[in-house]
């Protein structure tokens, strides 16, 4: 196991060098967060489908419990229970549009992870950086529990638990717990926990900051301890349910699913769950006593419990919906936590947008009107009024507006359009709009998938390290 420990030290040193300007020391944050003996316990696995390229290269790394799909290279890294999902990577010959440029993609895009330590992290989408079209790199980076690296090349970064970097190239930054950043390109920033920041330069700029004392109840992370709070308790309470799907080789679908839908064999499906046409259920999703109407989806690390999704609902990576009723075309952003109670349901009206990293946690029934934009912390009617607006009214903003902890500047119309376009793209990509012939997406393409497992050295200095492995067609 000596090699594994050396590798850990090497990664931490490299990240700290990148973060020296911010005077941020990663070591106390992650030392012993995942004991090395834990990293030797789990097999890694990868998917093979007729629809995705297969080109996996693993060198001098630990991959315990992690999943790979597509074209991925991992070097000198520790990946613990992470999902590296390369099913949206650009392919040779694609045209990438950036501003007025139409840029030809010369070779298949690759996710390249080097000198990094990713814990329970999801890597997905494709790089949106025109300067690095074919290389979705993650280097000298540490990410912690349930972070999302979504279409975001990162270099020299520390990502706190439940944080998301989305469509942003990130250099030498610290992104605090439960922060969400979508800002194109950022450098040398230390972003406080609970910062929701969406910026399109010269177009719009949105920021909401959680009151830290209240966010700490949901997620708190400090040196020397694992992440704590409602979010961690919630996933830990359901951890055992995943044990079976990872232990059993041939698993039967626990429910009837239509031909046009896809249910990942590494998802947990509890009784009384209905899966409609064109539904996508990704791995590590958890469904219980819920109704997923036509074209709804549940992405990685989503939990949908005692809830009804009427159809064409996007439930983005890591979002949780409990005791809630969602109208059609409701979008729930990354890592949002929506919790009603059995005797106090939460209802979200059709075509509403729940911003990424929103917490709605109610003990009395709450109704979000159709066509709403909701952000931040909402625990009652008063907080809903403070942290929401109708999409129609938000579209009218032309200069700037401040509402409580939310600050917006720029064109509200463009902001709303950008969200609506992206929601449409996600539905399209997920196969929600499949008509039996056209508009195939992940729900249809992910049906025929095989999984293979790979394992590390069991003993000796190299215990926990995987041998160099190249997997190609």
């Amino acid at each position, binding site marked *: 196991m000596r090699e594994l420990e050396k590798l850990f030290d090497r990664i931490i040193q490299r990240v700290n060098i990148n973060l020296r300007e911010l005077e941020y020391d990663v070591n106390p944050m992650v030392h012993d967060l995942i004991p090395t003996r834990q990293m030797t316990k789990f097999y890694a696995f990868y998917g093979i489908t007729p629809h995705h390229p297969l080109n996996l290269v693993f060198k001098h790394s630990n991959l315990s419990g992690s999943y790979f799909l597509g074209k991925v290279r991992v070097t000198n890294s520790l990946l613990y229970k992470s999902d590296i999902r390369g099913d949206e990577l650009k392919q040779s010959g694609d045209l990438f549009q950036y501003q007025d440029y139409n840029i030809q993609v010369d070779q298949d895009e690759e996710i390249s992870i080097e000198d990094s330590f990713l814990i329970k992290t999801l890597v997905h989408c494709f790089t949106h950086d025109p300067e690095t079209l074919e290389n979705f790199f993650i280097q000298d980076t540490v990410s912690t529990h349930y972070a999302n690296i979504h279409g975001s090349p990162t270099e020299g970064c520390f990502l706190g638990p439940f944080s998301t970097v989305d469509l942003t190239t990130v250099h030498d930054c610290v992104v605090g717990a439960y922060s969400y950043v979508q*800002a194109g390109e950022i450098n040398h920033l230390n972003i406080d926990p609970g910062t929701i920041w969406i910026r399109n*330069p010269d177009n719009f*700029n949105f*920021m909401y*900051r959680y009151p830290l004392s209240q966010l700490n109840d949901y997620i708190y992370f400090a040196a020397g301890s694992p992440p704590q709070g409602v979010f961690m308790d919630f996933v830990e309470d359901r951890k055992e349910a995943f044990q079976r799907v990872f232990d059993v080789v041939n698993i039967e679908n626990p429910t009837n699913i239509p031909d046009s839908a896809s249910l990942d064999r590494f998802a947990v499906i509890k009784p009384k769950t209905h899966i409609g046409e064109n539904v996508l259920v990704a791995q590590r999703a958890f469904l219980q006593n819920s109704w997923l109407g036509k074209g709804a989806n549940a992405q990685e690390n989503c939990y949908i419990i005692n809830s009804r999704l009427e159809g064409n609902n996007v439930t983005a990576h890591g979002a949780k919906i409990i005791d809630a009723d969602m109208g059609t075309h409701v979008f729930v952003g990354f890592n949002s936590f929506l919790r009603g109670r059995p005797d106090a349901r939460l209802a979200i009206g059709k075509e509403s947008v729940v911003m990424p990293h929103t917490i709605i946690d109610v003990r009395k029934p709450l109704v979000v009107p159709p066509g709403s934009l909701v952000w931040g912390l909402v625990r009652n009617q008063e907080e809903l009024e403070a942290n929401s607006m109708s999409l129609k009214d938000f579209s009218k903003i032309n200069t*700037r507006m*401040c509402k*409580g902890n939310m*600050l917006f500047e720029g064109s509200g119309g463009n902001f709303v359009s950008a969200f609506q376009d992206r929601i449409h793209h996600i539905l399209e990509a997920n196969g929600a709009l499949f008509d039996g012939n056209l508009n195939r997406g992940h729900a249809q393409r992910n049906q025929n998938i095989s999984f293979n497992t790979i394992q590390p050295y069991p003993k000796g200095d190299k215990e926990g390290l995987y041998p160099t492995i190249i997997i190609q067609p």
Partner: protein
Amino acid sequence: MKNYIVKDLMVPISEYATVPEEATLYESVLALEKAQEQFQQSQYSHRAVLILDKNQRVVGKLSQMDFLCALEPSDANLDQIRKFKRFGFTRKAVALQQEEYLKNSPPILDVYSKAAQLKVADYMQRPTEGEYVDENASLDMALHQLTAGSNLSLLVTKDADIVGVLRLADVFAAVFHAMKESELQLSKGAAE
């Protein structure tokens, strides 16, 4: 322009407002007011107070901006809001967020009475290397230093001592008058 040197234009330190390090903000602005009344040499009044240590050496400067900044409420959240510019927000947006945050704050008179007792040493700016200029330096040299650092004044030195203050307003006046004079001479020449 080349003929001027710094000491021709500086305000001697004896005519400048000074206070000891232990002074309060209120005592500082009283000293400024007094200096403005006593030493009104030009249309440009004094706009800063020099802070002296017990050896009468200049250790800092309190500008009108420093004084107003000291009146601004401060806490961890406001400090964060003031950094919003690095996230791409305009100054107007930052001010708007501050206003929203402070809408339930105490009345402004309460703020002023508390601020009056604050120590000047906590709000003064300690001069950096680029803010000193020798009394025999050319005005051109002083002008370069002022523009490079966007300073409103420079401390004028004679050997190790500070002997005066060179103010942007006085440099501006000297440059402007020189420009005006040369334009007049040019137009006179053209008429002849």
